[in-house]
Structure formats: structure tokens, C-alpha cells
């Protein structure tokens, strides 16, 4: 399973293939800011420092994130999967 590392706090946890990063953090008992869990409130938006994080393709059109934000490496962690080991700016 991919390893997710929160660079600012140094905490790491594993994330399953069909598990959003937010779900994985909760399973690991790690507090992360979130609200709607549907990709609309943007409270979990985080910059990916390294690795591949993919937004849930089924709900891409429903996510409140701009193309330029995605290009700058931001993802909505409540609606995104780690596809490789990743480092997050958190």
C-alpha cells in the first residue's frame, strides 16, 4: 500500500487503493482538517510535494478545485487516492 507522509508533522500512514487519503488518515487515527467529505468545501485542499495523488474520476466534475490549483499540485484529500508513496505539505 502507498505510504502517505505529512511533511510538516513527520507523520506517515498507509493508504489502500480504494481508500481516500482522508479515510486512510482517519483509520490511522490522524487528525486532518476536513468538513464536507465530498470535495466541495475545500477545507482539505493540500499541496502534493511528491508522488501521485489522483482525484476520484467518478466525481471529477463535482469537485470544487480549479484546474490551475491541480496544476500547482493541490488535491482535495477527501476525494483523492494515493497512487504511489506521496509527501504532502501538511
Amino acid at each position: 500500500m502507498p505510504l502517505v507522509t505529512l511533511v510538516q508533522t513527520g507523520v506517515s500512514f498507509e493508504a489502500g487503493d480504494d481508500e481516500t487519503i482522508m479515510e486512510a488518515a482517519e483509520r490511522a487515527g490522524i487528525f486532518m482538517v476536513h468538513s464536507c467529505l465530498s470535495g466541495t468545501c475545500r477545507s482539505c485542499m493540500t499541496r502534493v510535494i511528491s508522488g501521485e495523488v489522483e482525484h476520484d474520476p467518478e466525481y471529477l466534475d463535482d469537485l470544487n478545485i480549479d484546474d490551475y490549483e491541480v496544476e500547482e499540485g493541490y488535491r482535495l484529500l477527501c476525494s483523492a487516492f494515493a497512487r504511489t508513496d506521496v509527501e504532502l505539505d501538511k
Partner: protein
Amino acid sequence: MAKALPTSAKMNEQARVDSASKILKRFYVAERTLMRTLGAWFVATSQWDLKRQLSADMWQTAQHADVLRTRVLELRYPRRDVDRKYDAQVLALMAEVAKAAGTREFIAGVYDVVIPALVQNYEAYAARTDWLDDAPTVYRVQHILIDKQMQTAAMRSLREQVYEGDEPASVEQWRDYLRQYLASIGGFDGLGEVSDPPESHPCAGRPAFDVPRTVERDPRWRPALFHLPHENKYDAVGREAWKRIEALDKRVAMQVWSAISHFNEIWAAEVPASVMWDLDSEPWDFYMDLARWTWDETRHSTMGWRVLEGWGWDVPDLVPWANALYNSTGSTPARQRLSLLHFYEEGLLRSGTKQIELKILESAQDDNSSMDMDYDWADEAIHVNYGYTWLKHLLGDDKAGRDELKRLTDEARAKHADFVLAHKDDPNASLAPYFERLYPVVQAMLTDVPDDGLDVHWAPVAADEEVLKEL
């Protein structure tokens, strides 16, 4: 002669699809305008019990407009016209309704004239139409009627509580004017005889209504500009007075902070309601969302009030009910007011403030406040979606739009900071008298809860972040 089987029922021409859709469109226009007017008068009303009823009824009215609009479109009505070609007579009447000379008149006009007339028209529609052919309308109208009847009953009861003594003659005169005006447009359904509006009536000819740019609070409360120490960096004495409460326990401080903060969220209801009034030609979903935003924030304010009352406090004496957050930017353009509100709401969620507040309240084992915060948090997530969506619509979904959002927000924050500075010596800016009265009351109520080792960092969201350094 041609041949046919005999009909089993006589058709009413007004119940045919073309006629029905036109009548329902008039109802939609009436409800849509009533919703915006209730919102604007919610802002203009200071009396707390009436204010929150107006907000709740405003949101229900948005639901009524929505189901009517949906039904109009189902009845072969051109989509491109449903939000154009509004009936000028209905708009003219509703513009008069808004011109009431105070809350008492406004409520008399809406709850004694407008809503009863709508009820009568809906009942007549349901009686006239075919219960099977037009069943989707009948179903919707029956549910609207339930709401309207509950609204009028609730407001009747509130008026009996709030208003003492005989009703001024001017109120009945206002009702009379609106009844005459309504009759002159042939009723909301337009099926009555049309005549000239009552231009010689003593109530005719008033200037157009506008939503207030400054608000006042219920006169049972002393005037207050601010409600908690993060709002006013110049109030060092108030901050010190607050710190005594904070020193009792961070859980206690959060319980008090959260209830006072919730109660004062009324400004966050007033902003979207005033924006709905100022911007009158946006897509229908814009109004649906802002109506909900307004009602949610009124609910949050009511949550705070319920907690404060639940502690048995003399709320008007102990708790400031402030107006600076509305008044400091009340005269700025609607887009700017919405930008500032969105700044606060997004800031609260992105910093995790609500989540942390919930944890502290749970640690205090305050189930009531925790439940309120839990639902508040869910509501605020919806509001950030509204802000994100509609500010893009209003300002542009591109870099120029984003730059404009930042400019508007920064300017609004600066205006608020200027307002705070301009009022730093205003006696109504000082929170110390409240917190000094509150301290012994809170202290006397303290109770033991298990120490769960709560270890969280919490900070409020403030327009002027300088103030946070002092907290």
C-alpha cells in the same frame, strides 16, 4: 353531425395546461419576490423573536417558489421565459408590500394580506384543476398550504407576545391599501377584474424600500459593537476581562465563546439576505442557496441563544449582541459583502476551527453545544460551496475573477479594521462590562468533568489578524 362519446366531466378553461402554467408562473413570481422581501425585512427587523420567524418563513417561501417554478417548466412553459417576463402587476404589488413603515406594518401586510390571499388562490387553484391530470401541482400546492397556514399561526402568536396594547390605526390603513392594490391586479392568480391601483390611498406614493445598510439589535439588549475579544484589538480591558473566564478552564471558555459566537452569527444571516435584495437578476439557484445560507445562520444564532437561555442566564444583560460585522461593510457593494462573508466561512473550515471547537465542547461533555457545533460545521461546509460557486459566477471563473475576489476581500477587511479603529473609544465597543458581569455567573455554575488531557491549539478567524497575537 360528427359522433363522440359523452364527457364525464366539464372542463374548466382556466385549468388547461396553457392557463395553468401562466397562473403558476404568477404564483412563482409572487413567492420569489416575497422571499426576497422577507429576507430584506429580516435584516430591517431588530426584534429577535420576529426576526428569526421572518428568516424561517423566508426560506420556506424559497422552497415554495422553487416547486412552483419546477411545475411551471413541466407544463410546456418555455425554459427561456421562466425567469423573464415577470408579471409587472405582481412585481408592482410586491414592491408596495416592501414599503411598510416598520416591522409591525410589514408583518401586517404580509401575514394578514399577502399570505392569506395566496392561500385563497392556492385553494381555488386546487379546487378548479383536475385532481388526476394536474396531480403534481395539487400535491405541491397542498404542501405549500400547510406551510403557509403554520406561518400565519406562528406569526399571529408571536405578535400577541411582542406587541402590547391597541394596534395603531395606521396598520389597518396599510392592510386596507394592500388589499385594494391586490384587488386592482386581479389577485395573485390574475383571474379577478383588473383596475387602476389605489393611487389616491393615503398609503400610496411612498419611496421605494431598500435593505438597511446598518442594523440595530433588539432593544432589550444594550447597544454593542463587538461580541468577543478577537474583534477589537483596541479593547485591552475587555480582553483581560475575558482572560479571567478563560483561566477557569479552556473547556468553559469554549462553551461560553461558542454560545456567544453562535448567537452573534446573525450578521452572517443578514449579509446573504441583503445580497439577495441587492442582486435581483441572478440565476434562480443563487437565491435558493442564499436563502438557505440566511436561514442556516439564523438557526446558528438561535442555537447560541438557546444554549445561553438554557444556562438560565439573563441573556440581554450578560451577553453582547453586536452589529459591527454588518455595519462596517453594509454600504459596500453586494459582491464585496459576500466576499468578506466567504472569507470568514472558508477560513473557519480551512483552519479546522469548527472541528477543534467540537473537540473542546465534547471534552467539556456539553452535549447540547457539541450537537449544535456538529450541525453548524456541516452547514458551514455547504456555505463555502455556495460562496465558491456564486463568487465565481459574480466575479468570473478566471484569474481576473480570482484577483477581484482577493481585492474585494482585502478591501473589506481593511474597511472593517478602519471601522474598529474609528470606534475604539466608543463606549459600546467595550466588552469588559459584559465579561465582568459574566465571570461570577460562570464561576458559580462550574461543575467537575473528567480531565481527558485535551491538547489542542485553537484560534478564531478574525478580519484583522493582528488581534490574534494578543489573544
